[in-house]
Structures are given as structure tokens and as C-alpha cells.
């Protein structure tokens, strides 16, 4: 990981950092995009190194980096667009092209701001967590490293303009979330959950990669800006396949149906992780991606309709499920799915000229504030009481008033009560729905109602009612961030302008046109207000009558467990494992099988090759000349000896027959006009026979006799014969086919014969061996030397003498 700062230094020192958007000219100027990019790449590794050096300081590094990021983002919001554009991999036309535009600024603000709060919270939470699990406190270092890695990846992701760079950061978020969810390594459930999150988000991300490559194939560039420009110029449309791939990746990340199941499982992570990844960052990345590709996706209206359907479905189903969960973090997890269902629905509703995209980003901000606070509350409450189930808590407002107040504001924000920023998120949502007609309106009111029900149940279940658990005092650091967030929700509920400006700037990037929204309280009977009122009344009623309908909701939850995609995932993985296990059992494990599985497919390939090519005139029988009688005889003898060597039972006669083959071959070579080869063949055959007998003499005769006498399995016998025939056929077909061809007119052999006298020799073969092709001989004796080393190693532990 050291290479990270190094490579960054490399391109910074090249002086090629291009800046844009800043007004000052001349001299060095502060480039927020470049600073954030540096943070994006360095945060994780730096924190890791600090953690390795002084585990106790890891959180300080994390807080400083997150704080720096936050400051930079705020500066960027004040100064406007900036960017970085450096060559990265010119061979592929890749550039480190990063734009800190409106969309990026909004998500960067969330990532760094909430990141900072969570780091401060985690500073106390993580040591406590480790303490409960009996782990070493020094293990906090890796936690902050992975956390900051995640934050960095988010920063890089939101700024990336180059599709490959975007994908890189996209996948790093998946990897970082894997590390964070599996932080409790000894917990098998945590590891399985981390794997699930990685598989769902990582495999769907492959679609994004393929989409990026398809886009490059179609538009000839990885630069998103250029692609969008080309698409707007009407050159090409995106293509439905590409669009579906992008949207699937985004929906999987945002935990929408049917990919939603990983998110509740991911609650196995320590609570600060849940607070950050699964409310403000990881799931936000999905809708961010849709926002980023919005101009392209909008070229395919069917995609947007699909988004709306998926969003509405996720919102409804997880909303209902959220009302049935007992574990407080599970309630929040399903709530997140449902809330992002809203966002996706809004994005689906909001094409050109519509409110949806603005509403969506506004919603993301409001939701992030509220949901983080609620998760942090859940963590603090669990820390104080040791409980995670709603039915074992209650009445905690007395012992934890500050927490109750902070999270009350957050719950109100999520429930869209007036005087919170949440009210406006729903107002915009309703406005977007109104543009699309009654069906959308009904869905919107239903969604808002569900939100009120489950969040009311959550907050009320913890803080109101009879007291069922005792709360130990919790450190201030676990309460402070909740209070800060609650205050922020109330503040922006009174002064929503800044949030609206941020949302407008972000939406302008998606919609490619400026949109203005002016959230304000209107005490009149405009439809939005009526819808809000309806949802309050409905929600309140449902909350009061929970006893009557909750069995039905539980039933739905059970059906979901029975037939839902989580089940499919589990079964799929099980199936893979079983299938794999079955394959392992049939995997060939003995040497003979291994040889057979080479001969058989090789035979099949040879036959295919034979059939696929014209065989007419390909084979000739050749002519037997007058002088060839001896050669014919000796070849027949060779064949006989070859077959004979497979027959004997005992090893000694086998050795003798195989030597016979060798000597027959030597005679063949001699008759062939190759006396050198014949000489060597005879000598080598003799030498090998000596070695063979020497080796046999080392083996006990009893073992040899037993081995030789042991009968071969009858079934094997037939198989062996068949495979031997196949092997013979391979050799026959290949050698006959090659030998049948009249040879090329000019052959290098003629040159060798002519040149031999020049090399001071009369024996052409020898001169080839020592001169023309001496390198072969050099190699050959090297092989002999290596074999000698090997034999020494095997027989004498390497000793040569």
C-alpha cells in the first residue's frame, strides 16, 4: 500500500495537475478537487500506517483526514466547480479526470461530514466493542483504516469522470465494506454477511464494468462528460442492455429489490459501520450512480419506468417488513431499504423538466442526517443496556434524556414532521408524485405512512412506555454526535435554504438544466400539505392499532423469508458448494486417471482436427525401394519388441525386451544412414539398462515380485487397451499425415551438408551438434546436469560424492 502515496507524489511532482474553474490566475492556487482526490487515495493507507505505528492514534488520523475533507468540501461549495485531469494510462485513453461538481460536492459533504461524526463516535465505541469481545484494543487500528478507506473511495467515486476510475472507486467501496462488515472476524455470521455484501455488490458491479466497456466500444471514450455530450448531440442512444447493467449495479448497491437482502445481514457490522455505510455512504453510492448517469439513462424512458417500479416495490415491502423486526438495527436496515426506495422512485419519476431528481438528492441529505443519528442511537442504547431487541427496551428517556431528544428529532425528521428538514423532503416527494398522477400520489402517501409507523415504533419502543431494561451511563462521545445531528435536522428544518441550494446544484448535473426549489411552510390546503396530513393521520392510526394488523405483516415477513431472494442466495451458494463437492469427488485423483484424461481428450481433439480438414490425398502409403528390405524387417522387429515389452509379468524380462526395442531402433538408425545416432542409441540403451538393473537391485525382490504378480483389474485392463489404441491412433494419424506430405523443396539440411567443410569437419552430424546447433547440445548437457543434481537429491540428499 506504500505505492499509493508514491504514485500520487509522482503525478503531483510532474506538475501536470490541471486545474479548472478557479478564477485566480497565475501562481499556485488551492484546488479542492485535487486535495479531495489526494484524500481519497491516501486516507485508508495513511490511517492504516498510523494504526500500525500507534493504534491509539488511528482515530485521530481518521478524524483529521475526515475533518480536512469536510473543510475542503465546504471551501469547494463556496468557490464552485474545480477539477483534476491528468493522464493515467494513455494506452487505453484513461485519465485521472475528476470533477468536483454540484453532485460530487453534495455527496462529498455527506461522506466527510457524517464520516467525521462517526469517527468521533467510534473513537469510544470501538474500544468498548473490542472489550466486550475480549479482543485486543490495538485492533482498533484496522477498523479506522478500513473506515477511512471507505470514505476515500466515496470521495473518489463521486468526483470521477473517467468511467474506469469511477469503477475503481466503486469496487473499492465494496471491498472496504467487506472489510468493515467482517471486522468481527471470529464471528462466522459476520464473515458470511460480509461475503454476502461483497458478492451482491461486487458481482453486480461487473455489470457496471461491462457497461463502461460497452460505452467505450460505442462512443470511443471512457470520459463520461464526452459520452454525455455525444449522447445529447443525438449521435447514439445508450442501449437498453448497457442501461440495465448500470441500473442493476446501482440498485444492488442501494439495496433495492431484489438485491436488498444483503443490507439487513450487513447489520452484523459494528454499529458505527452500519451508521455510515448503510445509511449515508454505501447505499447512497447507488443512487449517486443513477444521478451521475442520469442524462444517459434518460435516453431510455423504459429504464426510468423500471426504476420507479423497483423503488415503489422496495419502499412498500421493506416498509412493511420494518414494522415486524424486533432487532433495533434490523428495523433501521429495512427502513433504509424503504427510504432508498423513495429515492429510486423519485429518480424514476423525475425525467427532464420534472421535480424528481431534485427531490431525490434533497431526500438523500435529509435521510442521511436522520438515519445516521438513529443508528448511532441504536449503538448507544445497546451499549448502555446490552440489549438489541425492541421488546426488551422501553422508557429509556428518563435515563438518557439527551439521547432521547436527539434521536427524537431524527425520528421526527425521518417521519417528515414539520419543523424538521424531513418535512421538506416529503413535500418535494409529494410534489414529484403529483406531477405523475394519482397512482404515484397513492404510493407516496402509503410510503410516508409506513415511515411514520416503523419509525414511531422504533423510537417509542426504545424511549417510551414501561421501563424494561436498566441503562448504564454511556460516554459523552456516544451521545454528542446524535445531539449534533438532531440539532442539524431541526436547524435545517427552519432554514432549509442551504440544503435546497445543494440539492439544486446536484440535480442540475443530473438533469443538465438548472432547477429551483423553494422549500417553505405554507399554511394552506395545497395538495402536498393534504398528502402530508393524510400520512400523519394514517400513520398515527396504524401505530395505535398495531395489534390488529401486525400478524398479517409478520405473515408477509415469513413468506419473504421462505421465498425471498435471500433464500435464493443461500440456496444458490449451497447449491454451488454441493455441486462443487460432487465435482470434487469425481475429480481424477490417481496417476493413471491423469494420464488417461490427457490421452482421451487429445485423441478427441486429433479426431476433430482430422474431420475438420480435408483428408483427400492427405495420406500416402509411400514406396518401398529395393534397398529397404532390411529396414522393413527391422521395423517389424521393433514393433514386435514394442508389443512384447508390454506382456511380461516380471520386471527383468521387461527390461530386456525394452532394451530389445532400443537395439532394434539402433539398427534402424544404422540402416537409415545415421551411424552416429545408431552408436549413441546402442550406448544409451546399454547405459540405461545398467541403471535400470542397478535401481531394481536396490528394491527388495519380494516387493518387485508382488508388484509384478498383482493382477490388473479386469475392467481396467479393457480401459487400458482402449486408451492404448487411442494413443496409438494419435501417433499414427499425426505421424502418417506429416510423413505423407512431399517435403518442402528447399531444406536447411542441404545447407548444413554444404557448409560442414567450412566448419573444419567431415561428419556433418557432429558439426551440427557442436557448431551449427551447439546451443542445443549445450542445453542437452545442461538437462543431463540438472538430472544428475536431481538424482543426487533423491538418492543422497543432494550429496554429489
Amino acid at each position, binding site marked *: 500500500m506504500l505505492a499509493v502515496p508514491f504514485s500520487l507524489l509522482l503525478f503531483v511532482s510532474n506538475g501536470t495537475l490541471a486545474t479548472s474553474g478557479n478564477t485566480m490566475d497565475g501562481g499556485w492556487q488551492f484546488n479542492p478537487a485535487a486535495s479531495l482526490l489526494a484524500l481519497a487515495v491516501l486516507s485508508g493507507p495513511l490511517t492504516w500506517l498510523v494504526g500500525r505505528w500507534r493504534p491509539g492514534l488511528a482515530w485521530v488520523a481518521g478524524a483529521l483526514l475526515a475533518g480536512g475533507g469536510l473543510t475542503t468540501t465546504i471551501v469547494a461549495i463556496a468557490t464552485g466547480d474545480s477539477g483534476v485531469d491528468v493522464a493515467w494510462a494513455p494506452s487505453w485513453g484513461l485519465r485521472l479526470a475528476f470533477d468536483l461538481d454540484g453532485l460530487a460536492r453534495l455527496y462529498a459533504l455527506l461522506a466527510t461530514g457524517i464520516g467525521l461524526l462517526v469517527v468521533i463516535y467510534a473513537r469510544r465505541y470501538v474500544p468498548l466493542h473490542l472489550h466486550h469481545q475480549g479482543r485486543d484494543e490495538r485492533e482498533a487500528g484496522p477498523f479506522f483504516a478500513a473506515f477511512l478507506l471507505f470514505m476515500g473511495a466515496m470521495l473518489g467515486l463521486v468526483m470521477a469522470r473517467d468511467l474506469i476510475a469511477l469503477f475503481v472507486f466503486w469496487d473499492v467501496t465494496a471491498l472496504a465494506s467487506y472489510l468493515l462488515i467482517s471486522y468481527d472476524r471470529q464471528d462466522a455470521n459476520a464473515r458470511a454477511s460480509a461475503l454476502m455484501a461483497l458478492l451482491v455488490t461486487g458481482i453486480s458491479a461487473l455489470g457496471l464494468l461491462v457497461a463502461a466497456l460497452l460505452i467505450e466500444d460505442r462512443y470511443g471514450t471512457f470520459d463520461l462528460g464526452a459520452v454525455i455530450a455525444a449522447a445529447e448531440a443525438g449521435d447514439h442512444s445508450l442501449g437498453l442492455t448497457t442501461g440495465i447493467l448500470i441500473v442493476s449495479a446501482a440498485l444492488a448497491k442501494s439495496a433495492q429489490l431484489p438485491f436488498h437482502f444483503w443490507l439487513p445481514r450487513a447489520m452484523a457490522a459494528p454499529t458505527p459501520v452500519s451508521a455510515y455505510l448503510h445509511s449515508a455512504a454505501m447505499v447512497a453510492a447507488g443512487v449517486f450512480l443513477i444521478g451521475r448517469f442520469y442524462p444517459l439513462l434518460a435516453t431510455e424512458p423504459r429504464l426510468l419506468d423500471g426504476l420507479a417500479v423497483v423503488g415503489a416495490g422496495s419502499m412498500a415491502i421493506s416498509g412493511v417488513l420494518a414494522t415486524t423486526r424486533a432487532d433495533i438495527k434490523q428495523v433501521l436496515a429495512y427502513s433504509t431499504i424503504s427510504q432508498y426506495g423513495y429515492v429510486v422512485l423519485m429518480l424514476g419519476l423525475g425525467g427532464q423538466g420534472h421535480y424528481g431528481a431534485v427531490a431525490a438528492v434533497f431526500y438523500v441529505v435529509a435521510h442521511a442526517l436522520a438515519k445516521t443519528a438513529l443508528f448511532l442511537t441504536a449503538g448507544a442504547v445497546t451499549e448502555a443496556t446490552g440489549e438489541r431487541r425492541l421488546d426488551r427496551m422501553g422508557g429509556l428517556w428518563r435515563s438518557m434524556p439527551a439521547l432521547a431528544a436527539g434521536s427524537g428529532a431524527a425520528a421526527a425528521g425521518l417521519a417528515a414532521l414539520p419543523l424538521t428538514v424531513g418535512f421538506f423532503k416529503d413535500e418535494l416527494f409529494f410534489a414529484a408524485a403529483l406531477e405523475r398522477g394519482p397512482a404515484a400520489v397513492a404510493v407516496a402517501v402509503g410510503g410516508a405512512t409506513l415511515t411514520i409507523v416503523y419509525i414511531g415504533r422504533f423510537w417509542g419502543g426504545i424511549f417510551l412506555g414501561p421501563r424494561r431494561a436498566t441503562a448504564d451511563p454511556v460516554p459523552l462521545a456516544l451521545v454528542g454526535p446524535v445531539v449534533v445531528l438532531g440539532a442539524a435536522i431541526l436547524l435545517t428544518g427552519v432554514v432549509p435554504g442551504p440544503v435546497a441550494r445543494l440539492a439544486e446544484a446536484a440535480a442540475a448535473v443530473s438533469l443538465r438544466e438548472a432547477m429551483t426549489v423553494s422549500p417553505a411552510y405554507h399554511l394552506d390546503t395545497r395538495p402536498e400539505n393534504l398528502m402530508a396530513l393524510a400520512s400523519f393521520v394514517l400513520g398515527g392510526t396504524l401505530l395505535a392499532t398495531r395489534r390488529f394488523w401486525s400478524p398479517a405483516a409478520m405473515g408477509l415477513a415469513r413468506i419473504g423469508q421462505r421465498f425471498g431472494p435471500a433464500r435464493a442466495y443461500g440456496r444458490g451458494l449451497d447449491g454451488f458448494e454441493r455441486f462443487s463437492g460432487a465435482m470434487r469427488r469425481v475429480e481424477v485423483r490417481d496417476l493413471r486417471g491423469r494420464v488417461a484424461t490427457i490421452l482421451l481428450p487429445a485423441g478427441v481433439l486429433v479426431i476433430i482436427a482430422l474431420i475438420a480438414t480435408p483428408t483427400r490425398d492427405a495420406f500416402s502409403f509411400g514406396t518401398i525401394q529395393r534397398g529397404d528390405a532390411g529396414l522393413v524387417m527391422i521395423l517389424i522387429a521393433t514393433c514386435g519388441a514394442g508389443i512384447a515389452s508390454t506382456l511380461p509379468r516380471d520386471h527383468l524380462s521387461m527390461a530386456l525386451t525394452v532394451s530389445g526395442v532400443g537395439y532394434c531402433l539402433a539398427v534402424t538408425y544404422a540402416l537409415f544412414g545415421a551411424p552416429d545416432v545408431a552408436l549413441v542409441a546402442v550406448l544409451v540403451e546399454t547405459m540405461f539398462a545398467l541403471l535400470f538393473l542397478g535401481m531394481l537391485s536396490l528394491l527388495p525382490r519380494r516387493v518387485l515380485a508382488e508388484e509384478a504378480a498383482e493382477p490388473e483389474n479386469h475392467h481396467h485392463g479393457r480401459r487400458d487397451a482402449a486408451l492404448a489404441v487411442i494413443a496409438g491412433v494419435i501417433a499414427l494419424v499425426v505421424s502418417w499425415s506429416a510423413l505423407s506430405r512431399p517435403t518442402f523443396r528447399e531444406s536447411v539440411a542441404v545447407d548444413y551438408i554444404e557448409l560442414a567443410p567450412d566448419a573444419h*569437419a567431415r*561428419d556433418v552430424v*557432429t*558439426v551440427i551438434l*557442436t557448431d551449427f546447433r551447439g546451443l542445443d547440445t*549445450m542445453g542437452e548437457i545442461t538437462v*543431463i546436469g540438472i538430472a544428475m543434481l536431481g538424482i543426487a537429491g533423491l*538418492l543422497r*540428499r543432494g550429496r554429489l*560424492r
Partner: protein
Amino acid sequence: MSPSSRYQVDAAQSRIDPSVTTVLTQTVARLLLVPIFMVALAILVKGYADVGDGFSAGVVAALGVLLQDVAFGYRAIGRLTIVRLAPYGALAGALIALGVTFVPVLTGEPLLRHRPGAGEPVAHLGALELITPVLFDIGVFLVVFGFAVGVIGMIARMHPRPIGPSRGTGATGGDEG
């Protein structure tokens, strides 16, 4: 009981019976050694003019040494100095051949550039031409001879000592030297 020690008992029972060696064969073997080396030398030297080269010469010479094993038994040849040093001879031979191959590179010529070059006059020493390919061939000879003799020697030293009062060094490969 470890595998190797169990094996030793088996192998000891199955060793070649030393009584097959007789005084006559021993004498013949000794006497044959010199002519065999002569033949090997001839094959090596004449390689450029006639059948044969360093490789066959090496095998012939090795067979000559190994004839001793028929005569004296495996254990005896395991103790011969020439057998013990043979592997180093093989490596030295490889170094010689490698030298012939790569020394020309040092002078900026292509590898394996032999001296004297094509068409240049050659000094003779009897039938022997003084050209670098001969040196190369000597390297090959040494490698092959060293390999064959060395490996047989290794096998020979694997043979366990005869049952009964033992003499000599007979090692069984399992222990460190």
C-alpha cells in the same frame, strides 16, 4: 520403525550375491579399462572425421568404468575415487562447454563463435584438429561420463553393507555426510 530402516532390511536380503565375482572377471575388467579409455578417446578425437562425438565417447568411457561393477560389485565401485569425483567432472565439463559458448560474447562476437572460423587454417596435432569445437566436445564428454559414472556410483553407495562383519564406508543415503 521408519520407512528407510525397514527398507534396509529388505534390501540387504536381496542384494546381489558377492560370490558371483571371480578373480578372472576382476582381472579381465582391470585389463579392459585401458583399452576402453583408448576407444573413448578415439571416438572423441575422431568425432569430426568419422562417426562419434563427445557424447558417445563419454558413454563408452563410463561403460568401461562400470564394467568394474560387474567384476567387483556395486559397493566396490562406490569407493573408487574416479567415481566419487565424477559428478564434479560433469559440472566442470558443463562449465567448459559453457565457456566455449559464451566467451565469444565477451569480445562482442555472437555466442558459440568457434575459432578458427570458417575457412581459416587449422593446426593439426596428429588426427586432432585444434579447434574450439573439440574443446566443446570435451566438455560434453565430461558431462556424460560424469553423469553416467556418478549416477551409478550413487546407486552403488545406496547398497547396504553386507550382513555380517562389515568393512569400508557403505553409507545408505539417509544420513548426512
